[in-house]
């Protein structure tokens, strides 16, 4: 709601204008029965054809005017509802760019995406409904009461009682329906999820012969959903009969009470028609409003979910310094007794990690889940460490801005990810000021030159969503090229050579060494052949460093490393033969 208030302030005038148009619309709608009454009283009863024509013309005029006003009101409500969506989405997107990776992961891409699309669509649509179907209801009710009162104050109780009676019943219905709407959504989600598992797991389910078990599990979610839907339907089944009953009581009252009034001469007979129409119209609009009101909590929940993202504390706080003081003869980066753990976990992902990253090649080896990727995230300050300190150019990375830190590190993630657009766009992503020459050079080093030359359009070739029109190896090479084109002090390759064949891998490493002679290179890898020439190799096991040294040293001293070598057919003898 806080968000709505901010938006409301910005668009106060348009809100006010639309509201006024709606008042005109409400009064206009009710003027039709008013003129019917006039036709009866002035025209028919006095046998005056002229009066009939005159009032008929008024009626037509009012109808046209009301029509136009309603259309304009629709236009402005569409703008307001649409703009609110725009406003929310813009804030959401801006916020996600400032959140830490940890927070982003916590929400997850599907969740954030849902909030950017379906939640906002919900809000837009429901806001439109509020304008078109809810706001008019009280306006019409109020106008009915006033217009009835204008005929005779003695009749005012008829619309009031009808409105109050119906509102009480619908409020009761709505009050019960709102919590049900939540339940409904939850069960819908559950149904989707279990059915998805049922469908995607068909092989495993059949292999374990669990067909009937899974069918029962899935059908249970179906019947749970049907059950809540039926409850909701039954609840709403009360609304229409209530309207009819209230209308009946109203009409009967108009006829009986009105009959007496007419005979006494207090009101003309045509006004009975007008009064009953006022009541009918009020109830009609109220019912529409009642059907829509239940959707408001849904929109509020969506709004709250967006608010949750916007209110997330930005976990990583920029340091004050915007630049590093460069000094000679010191390592580019240092990990000093770094710990990293997820909150609530029994064991840490990284513990007591200490090592230097000087110029030259540092390799990190470790098994699945040994914490290799977490090292990159900590270094880039995509997540903050639990304990210890990471220094870059001698400065704790918490003391500088994230931007200045990341400007000096070039990173290639484990999962090659390209942005949709062209090959060139992806290169420029690494360095917006890169020249054609630099692009070619980077492509050459990344061993991507040949296949880019074969592409339709070369550097202007189309790249699909996530780079899906390229093979795994091509994607990796392009994402490596993108990193190489970025000028940096430290290049981090996070298991980025895995999809390359052995030959390309070897060529690429050779080219890297001369291309990045002045920088620090970190290579995370599983394949020992990729890293055996590194200046230092760090061996990780369950989040701890269990070995540090060169390939030869580790083969002699590090048990875990020996096992790796063995599992990859690199036993002692073979290695010596190759090293020579």
């Amino acid at each position: 709601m806080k968000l709505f208030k901010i938006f409301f302030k910005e668009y106060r005038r348009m809100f006010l204008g639309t509201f006024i148009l709606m008042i005109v619309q409400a009064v206009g709608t009710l003027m039709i029965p008013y003129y019917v009454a006039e036709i009866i009283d002035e025209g028919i009863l006095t046998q005056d054809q002229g009066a009939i024509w005159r009032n008929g013309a008024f009626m037509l005029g009012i109808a046209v005017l009301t029509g136009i006003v309603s259309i304009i009101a629709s236009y402005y409500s569409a703008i307001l509802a649409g703009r609110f969506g725009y406003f929310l989405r813009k804030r959401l997107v801006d916020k996600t760019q400032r959140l830490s990776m940890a927070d982003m992961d916590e929400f997850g891409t599907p969740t954030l995406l849902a909030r950017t699309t379906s939640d906002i669509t919900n809000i837009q649509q429901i806001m439109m409904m509020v304008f078109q179907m809810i706001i008019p209801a009280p306006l019409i009710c109020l106008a009915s009461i006033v217009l009835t009162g204008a005929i005779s104050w003695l009749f005012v109780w008829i619309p009031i009682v009808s409105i109050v009676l119906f509102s009480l019943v619908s409020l009761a219905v709505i009050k019960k329906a709102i919590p049900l709407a939540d339940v409904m959504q939850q069960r819908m989600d559950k149904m989707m999820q279990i059915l998805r598992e049922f469908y995607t797991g068909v092989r495993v389910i059949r292999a374990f012969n669990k067909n009937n078990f899974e069918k029962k599990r899935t059908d249970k979610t179906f019947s749970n959903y049907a059950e809540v839907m039926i409850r909701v339907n039954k609840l709403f089944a009360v609304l229409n009969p209530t309207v009819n009953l209230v209308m009946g009581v109203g009409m009967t009252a108009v006829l009986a009470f009105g009959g007496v009034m007419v005979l006494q001469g207090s009101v003309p007979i045509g006004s009975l028609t007008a009064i009953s129409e006022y009541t009918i119209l009020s109830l009609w609009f109220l019912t529409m409003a009642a059907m829509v009101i239940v959707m408001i909590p849904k929109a509020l929940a969506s709004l709250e979910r967006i608010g949750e993202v916007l209110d997330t504390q930005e976990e990583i706080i920029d340091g004050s310094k915007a630049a590093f003081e460069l000094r000679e003869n010191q390592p580019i980066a240092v990990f000093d007794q770094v710990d990293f753990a997820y909150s609530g976990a029994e064991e840490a992902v990284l513990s007591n990690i200490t090592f230097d990253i000087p110029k030259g090649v540092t390799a990190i080896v470790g098994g699945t889940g040994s914490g290799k990727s977490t090292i990159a995230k900590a270094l880039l300050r995509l997540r903050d460490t639990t304990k210890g300190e990471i220094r870059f150019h001698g400065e704790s990375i918490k003391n500088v801005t994230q931007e200045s830190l990341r400007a000096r590190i070039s990173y290639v993630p484990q999962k090659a990810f390209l942005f949709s657009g062209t090959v060139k766009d992806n290169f420029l992503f690494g360095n917006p000021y890169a020249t054609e020459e630099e692009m070619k050079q980077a492509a050459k080093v990344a061993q991507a030159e040949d296949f880019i030359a074969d592409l339709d359009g070369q550097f202007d070739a189309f790249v699909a969503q996530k780079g899906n029109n390229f093979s795994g190896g091509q994607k990796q090479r392009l994402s490596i090229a993108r990193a190489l084109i970025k000028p940096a002090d430290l290049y981090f390759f996070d298991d980025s050579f895995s999809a390359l064949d052995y030959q390309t891998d070897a060529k690429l490493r050779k080219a890297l060494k001369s291309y990045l002679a002045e920088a620090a290179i970190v290579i995370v890898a599983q394949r020992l052949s990729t890293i055996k020439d590194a200046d230092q190799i760090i061996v990780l096991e369950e989040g701890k460093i269990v070995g540090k040294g060169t390939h030869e040293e580790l083969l002699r001293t590090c048990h875990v490393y020996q096992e790796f070598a063995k599992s990859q057919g690199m036993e002692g003898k073979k290695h010596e033969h190759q090293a020579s």
Partner: protein
Amino acid sequence: MSIKQVDEKKVETETPKEFKKTGIRLFKLLIEQKTRFAVIIASAICFAALMAITPLILGWGLDAIITLIRTQQITMENLFAALIQPVVWLFIAWCGVSLFSLLQEYTMASVAETLTLRLRTSLTEKLNHLPMKFFDQYKTGDILTRATLDLDKVSEVLQVGLMQMISAILSIVIGLGVMVYLSPLLTLGIVIILLVSLFLTNRLAHKNQEYFSENQAALGAVGTKAEENYSGNLLIKAYNRQQATADELDKLNEAQFQAFKKAQFVSFAINPLIRLINQLGFVTSAVVGGIMVINGQLSIGLVQAYLQYVNQVSEPITQVSYVINSLQSAFAALERIFEILDQEEEVEEVLNLSVPENVRGEVAFKHVAFGYSPDKLLMEDVNFKVKPKQMIAIVGPTGAGKTTMINLLMRFYELTNGEIEVDGKNISHFSRAEIRQKFGMVLQDTWLFEGTVADNIAYGKPDATRQEIVQAAKDAQCHHFIRTLPNGYDTIISSDGTQISQGQQQLLTIARAILADPQLLILDEATSSVDTRTEGMIQQAMDQLTTERTSFVIAHRLSTIKNADLILVMKDGSIIEQGNHSSLMKKGDFYANLYNSQFAG
């Protein structure tokens, strides 16, 4: 007066292919709930009839009052005598209207949902009997949409639309009948105006659809870009590109705003426009009716009644055109479900022999041929024989037919020719479910369901103790990482498995197979995402698994299958070499090349 409206914004151009056939099928499904259906129809008729009478009664009352005034007999007794009947009848009629609408709606409340529930459960029943081919053909998202959103639309349209349709048609027929009776000429005029409005409604509804699909497209563009931004966020931040990406999205956001504005405006501007045209009819009736009263052709009460009829008829006419539109899309949705329910099922075996409790594990492929269509065979004449407790490795390049072989063994697909024998008996004589249960399977594409880690491991053995589960996890080398999860073994994981990596998921499914302890084992690239050292460590557990039973292993890394008793080298659907590691290496052909290329440092 029925006020519920079918959601106008969801009207779509979708047209069902066979309107009549689907209609009949739907009708049959509805008839299954015949008592309810009869109640609904009966109360709808009573409702509409009573609804049509009320204006007449009101008119009667008004005329009675006017007669009293005209004849100057203004006493309370006279008034009472004249009004008592109309007032009482009016009240009774409205009570009836209310009662019947309650009856109708309350009964209807469960009809649509009962129907869709039935369709949903027959869908899962069907899925259990469909051949694997079906699952390759239809994407998960497609099936999910059909079973949930599509059927939801059906039930919504039935729930609101069907009832609206019944009452609308009855209201129109009865209303028009009375109107013609009151004044045929005036009614003709009204009908013409209504037809114009009907035509216009349809035209605008079409325009509206266009704008809605534009908005949908704009929304799609925002979604695609946003997804890219979120999933590539690591890169965007690592490369300091936050501002540039936010700017790009802002442009799409603005475009969506414009599209939304247009679509919603047209959608909601239709109502006042239609109302305006209908009011034209109303004004005409008021004026003409008034003149008719002066000429003595009608009474005031009846003019008043006539005006109410005009409303009672014009409102439903616009409704009906919307309902027809939405019925069309509901029918299209129904057809999509029927399409699945009509798929051909897996033929159940005729012999249906029961599989012996203990299988020795002798497996033979005899002249096995297979293709999705008989004229395009993927596999021709595959022959090999496996002794109990042997380990068989299947290797070969992508698309060689390795997984197909496993699928045939599991009877996920039917052979085109030849036979597969287990313990000397043709497996197509066994019941599918029983033979499958003898196999344990670990696949490259892991499948986890929403539940705790422990539940997932114990899937094949639900009564396993915590100790057994932990032991299986230790054997599969996933005990450590499970303990780094927020709640250890009780951490809830889900099918999309975002919290755990692909390699870790593979370890969990291996633990599942270890615990299930099957009589035959299939490992299809079971460790493809696990690092080599961990793989080596699981190898011990695997070795134990594979020595105790007949096992089939598909592996990308040849180092893991060196000890296999039989290696089948496949290429383009046929076995081009077979033997053990050393004999194949000696042969120095395809296998030897493959092996050497993997170990060239």
